[in-house]
């Protein structure tokens, strides 16, 4: 019973993450086309499972399609940020040339105070709401912090006695850096990925909500919340359903990241911070 209780949060957070993720992945495949037969605006029921939105479109169909951009752009951005920032961080940490380390990290220090939502808005408007441009902008504002995090975690591992021992055993460069340092970075990285995905979903959703991103009729969860908010009291599901999807996803990822943080602290012999 106690083991079950301890597991419950994991199950809950997994369900919270998986439901929106599955909707985003499978939804676009099973959804019927939207424009076929628009109904009355803000109708409740009327042959529509979750009613209709302000344009008379079926809320359930919108929900099925809207996850693709809302989650896809954020996940893509985090992947790119880690690909670029992670590489910079690892190279900076493992190089023995101090100037290379400085050259890679200093410019990023300078970029840190740039307000992220601002950069993304300017890019989104400039490139006519291209999803690719927004994804790249969200990735770009995340690169400095990712690079610093990976560098710090890798330095922690690379300056320890284990690497010294491996070096004395004439272990190959790849064996040390990819086999040991790379692996020990994974713990802090996994915890950070969780919070970073939440943040990226927030950024993408905020830009779309402000009307600076995707077009105001695009089937996207954040756009739906923004568009239908004046009809909230008439037809709450048009706002609540997409909002719930977003909240479930970010909440689930936050819970997962929190678990990973406490676990990696446990492994380092610190008290778990729950």
């Amino acid at each position, binding site marked *: 019973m106690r083991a079950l209780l301890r597991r419950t949060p994991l199950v809950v957070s997994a369900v919270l993450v998986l439901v929106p993720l599955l909707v985003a992945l499978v939804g676009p495949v099973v959804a019927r086309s939207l424009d076929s037969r628009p109904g009355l605006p803000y109708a409740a029921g009327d042959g529509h499972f979750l009613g209709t939105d302000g344009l008379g479109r079926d809320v359930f169909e919108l929900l099925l399609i809207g996850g693709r951009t809302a989650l896809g752009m954020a996940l893509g951005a985090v992947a790119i940020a880690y690909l670029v920032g992670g590489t910079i961080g690892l190279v900076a940490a493992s190089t023995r040339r101090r100037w290379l380390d400085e050259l890679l990290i200093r410019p990023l220090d300078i970029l840190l105070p740039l307000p992220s939502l601002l950069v993304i808005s*300017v890019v989104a408007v400039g490139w006519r709401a291209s999803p690719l441009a927004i994804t790249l902008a969200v990735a770009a504002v995340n690169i400095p912090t990712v690079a610093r995090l990976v560098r710090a975690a890798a330095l922690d591992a690379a300056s320890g006695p284990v690497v010294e021992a491996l070096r004395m055993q004439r272990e190959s460069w790849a064996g040390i850096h990819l086999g040991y340092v790379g692996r020990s970075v994974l713990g802090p990285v996994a915890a950070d990925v969780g919070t970073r995905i939440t943040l990226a979903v927030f950024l993408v959703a905020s830009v779309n909500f402000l009307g*600076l991103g995707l077009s105001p009729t695009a089937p996207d969860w954040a756009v739906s919340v923004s568009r239908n908010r004046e009809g909230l009291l008439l037809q709450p599901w048009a706002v609540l359903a997409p909002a719930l999807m977003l*909240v479930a996803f970010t909440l689930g990822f936050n819970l997962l990241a929190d678990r990973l943080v406490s676990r990696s602290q446990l492994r380092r012999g610190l008290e778990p911070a729950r």
Partner: protein
Amino acid sequence: MRSYAAQRAALAVVQLAVLSALVFVLTALLPGDAADMRYTETLSPAQVEQLREQLGLNQPALERFADWARGVVAGDLGTSLVSGGPVLDIVRASVGATLVLTLATLAVVLPLALGLGILAGAREGGRLDRAISSVTLALSAIPDFVVAVLLVAVFSLRLGWLPATWVGSTGADLLTHPALLVLPVAVLFGRTVCLLSRQVRAGTVNALHAEYVVQARRLGVPRRRILLRHVLPNAAVPGVQELARTGDTLLGGVLVVEAIFAIPGFATALVSGVEARDVPVVQGLTLVLAVAALLINLGADLVCNRLVPRTELLR
């Protein structure tokens, strides 16, 4: 301490120079300019070209940057392409509402975040800690605009207790109508409190496990004195650093909140500037924001160094 401050300030100066160049490049890269946006429907291509010349939009980018940078150093942010007035006036007109909003939020957030964080961290793993930790974790996962939409629906539309927009009011009305501030601050405060208090809690927990605290306990120093004299300064460091980072979150929140409540602040001016391709306005506002973020970061680092004088700048 003094050499740390000097180094940190030098870094800030370099940051400022690079950021202003970056702001210029980013906005200059925007495809389509103000001449395109305003007149393609009514003017012939030749006339658009003439207007472009008049606005100085066809000069080489480097020359425009030099002009702009000279102006900025002299305290002149340029002229709006749409209204024709100085950008500085637009900054002045919009800064009040945003500043009031941000300061009001911080005034609520800071004491609450410190209090909650220390309360939760002081009895790690206890019932109160678990309650505070799970509530802050859950709340920090809800996007600002969802909170805003729900609060407006309940408190303005359903119950009619609080105004839903600022339409027709300016920053000066705030002192006479504080009710205007309640919902925007409520939206902004939720996430910030959660993020900050979690950092303060982690700092408290770490400090409580440190050897100097264990030793102080052995010597019989009273618990309250340990918490206030030894734990609090150390616990505040991650909080202050997080505050500088939260500045970014808070600014994003301010953009969203200003849009929802139609607050005539910085974000509103910025969004309309971006939409109209009014490049000087966007440049000016972005620069002011970047400088503010820079100063917040500088201040946070200096405060941390004062609290715990071991933070190193140069690794």
